[in-house]
């Protein structure tokens, strides 16, 4: 019974495919799974938007939306209807084709990320051997769409937003990748499915998640920071800083295209949260061995939702960074930490079992964190500005 529940979606798919002739089974299976993904994540997106608005409201001692339906739970529906019925305005000077393609490219690229995501035991659409690589390739495509949007709008705010977005996303792509590389070094595979299977063991009650090792924790923190920057979430929301750039790269978008950008952004959030879960938090594996009977997909989506809540929490807390702070942080702190983490992971691997590797690796990472944090990220105190005029 429990196994059935765990595999309910897989069994359902097989049951549907059982009615089809052999040659049809593979393509129809892919299409059905893809349609499920395409419907599931927008539904989660609606939930996330509602949670975000309610949660941020509560953090600021407000109620948040509470008018549409009981406790405002139908607010996303109202928002959806509004954005669908709004006029779609394309600026006269815009490059119409690129302007139209940008949100489409974004949404397509973002949904492609889920093709390789293991959402439960045996629940993966395409079990690629290099699925991590595929995921990062698709993640990089979103940068293209953002630049397309900013460039084609022929608006200075859009272009500034797009330039910021590209600079930021390329800078943080590097730590994002390098923090994932640690996991690749440990599991010896680029396949996300293999990575989850590597973490699905228990010592006593406790799981073998990578986040519970020194290099895994460091990688997890770096990944969390870089993924926040990748999804343009606060405090890294410079590309769309409302107070500076109207809406950044999608200033000139309205109606459904705007909704698509919004959707793309949130679904990308789900994607990086899902990847972070898969890499560091054991994917669909249970947090305690006694809870292993709970269906695996509940664990996966639960962990993703918690990750989203942390994103919202961070957004409610932190102010926006300045461009130079953003770049300094990426290149002077996060990247060296990443490289050190690669070294530490290698050390861990070759020191063999025992308590010594825990001590050595932890000390190395904490030392680097403290020293670099003090040396490079120290708050600079500027004195009063002085002017020297020509005599």
């Amino acid at each position, binding site marked *: 019974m429990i196994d059935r529940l765990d595999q309910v979606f897989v069994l359902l798919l097989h049951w549907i495919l059982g009615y089809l002739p052999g040659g049809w089974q593979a393509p129809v299976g892919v299409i059905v799974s893809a349609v499920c993904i395409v419907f599931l994540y927008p539904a989660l997106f609606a939930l996330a938007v509602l949670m975000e608005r309610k*949660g941020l409201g*509560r*953090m*600021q*001692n*407000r*109620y948040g939306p509470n008018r549409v339906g009981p406790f405002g739970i139908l607010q996303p529906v109202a928002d959806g209807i509004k954005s669908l019925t709004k006029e779609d305005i394309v600026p006269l000077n815009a490059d119409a084709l690129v302007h139209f393609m940008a949100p489409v490219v974004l949404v397509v690229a973002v949904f492609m990320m889920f093709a390789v995501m293991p959402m439960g035991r045996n629940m993966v659409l395409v079990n690629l051997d290099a699925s991590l690589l595929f995921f990062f390739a698709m993640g990089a495509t979103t940068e293209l769409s953002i630049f397309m949007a900013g460039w084609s709008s022929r608006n200075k705010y859009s272009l500034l937003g797009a330039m910021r977005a590209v600079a930021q996303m390329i800078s943080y792509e590097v730590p994002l990748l390098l923090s994932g590389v640690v996991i690749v070094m440990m599991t010896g595979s680029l396949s996300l499915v293999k990575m989850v299977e590597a973490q699905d063991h228990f010592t006593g009650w406790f799981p073998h998640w990578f986040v519970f090792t020194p290099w895994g924790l460091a990688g997890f923190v770096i990944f969390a920071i870089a993924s926040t920057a990748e999804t343009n979430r606060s405090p890294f929301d410079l590309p769309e800083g409302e107070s500076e750039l109207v809406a950044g790269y999608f200033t000139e978008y309205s109606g459904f295209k705007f909704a698509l950008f919004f959707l793309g952004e949130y679904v990308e959030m789900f994607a990086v949260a899902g990847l972070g879960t898969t890499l560091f938090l054991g994917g669909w594996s249970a947090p305690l061995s006694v809870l292993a009977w709970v269906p695996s997909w509940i664990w996966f989506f639960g962990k993703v939702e918690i990750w989203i809540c942390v994103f919202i*929490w*961070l957004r*409610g*807390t*932190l102010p926006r960074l300045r461009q130079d702070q953003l770049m300094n942080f990426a290149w002077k*702190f996060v990247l060296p930490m990443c490289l050190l983490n690669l070294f530490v992971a290698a050390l861990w691997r070759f020191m063999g079992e025992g308590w010594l590797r825990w001590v050595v690796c932890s000390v190395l990472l904490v030392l680097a*964190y*403290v020293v*670099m*944090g*003090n040396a490079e*990220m120290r708050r600079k105190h500027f004195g009063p500005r002085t002017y020297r005029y020509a005599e």
Partner: protein
Amino acid sequence: MLGEGILKGLAETARNFAGSYVSKDRLTTVQYPEERAPAIEASRVFPFLVYDGADWEAGLRCVACQICEKECPPKCIYIEKSKDKKPDYVGKPQIYPAKFDIDISVCMSCQICVEVCPFEAIKMDTDFELSTDDRFGGLLLDRQELAKSNEYYHNIHPTEAAEVDARLAEEKAKAEVKAKAAADAAAAKAAAAATAGAAGTTPGNPAAAPAAKATEGEPKA
């Protein structure tokens, strides 16, 4: 250490998040259509015309002097003078506005009309629920829609209205005293003219003015 501030900030927002569910005092939101924030005395939205007494048409303080119309920066006031006259609060016959329109879609709530009005006839309203489905007619208020009683004025701006009433009463008293003095002076002049004959006719006015001042007992400046 690096990141300490972030943790502190996260704790602060978490405390606010949880606290907003626990104590109602934290929530500052007023649920508008059902609840209302207490009225603020100094608030102002658009001008209205004050009338005294029960009949709005007879009691309008406005004498159609058109100063507000001329001073209005966005030119949103339209006044037409009447042909006949009616007595004002002092009892003096005055012209009244046959037409007094304010286009509140143009009005910028600057209060200049109120500042310049010598008759305390136009004041700022606090009613902000003015939305209408008629974009042109619904936002052009005529004098009946603009006319609001002095009691209403006392309701929305008690301090200011009390001051205005005191000033008006003072002016009225002054005017009465002045009228009385003028009447006295005229009587005295008539008596003097009767006694002095033809000599008193030319300096009549200069003789009357000091007499009026003397009875008032205080310098004008």
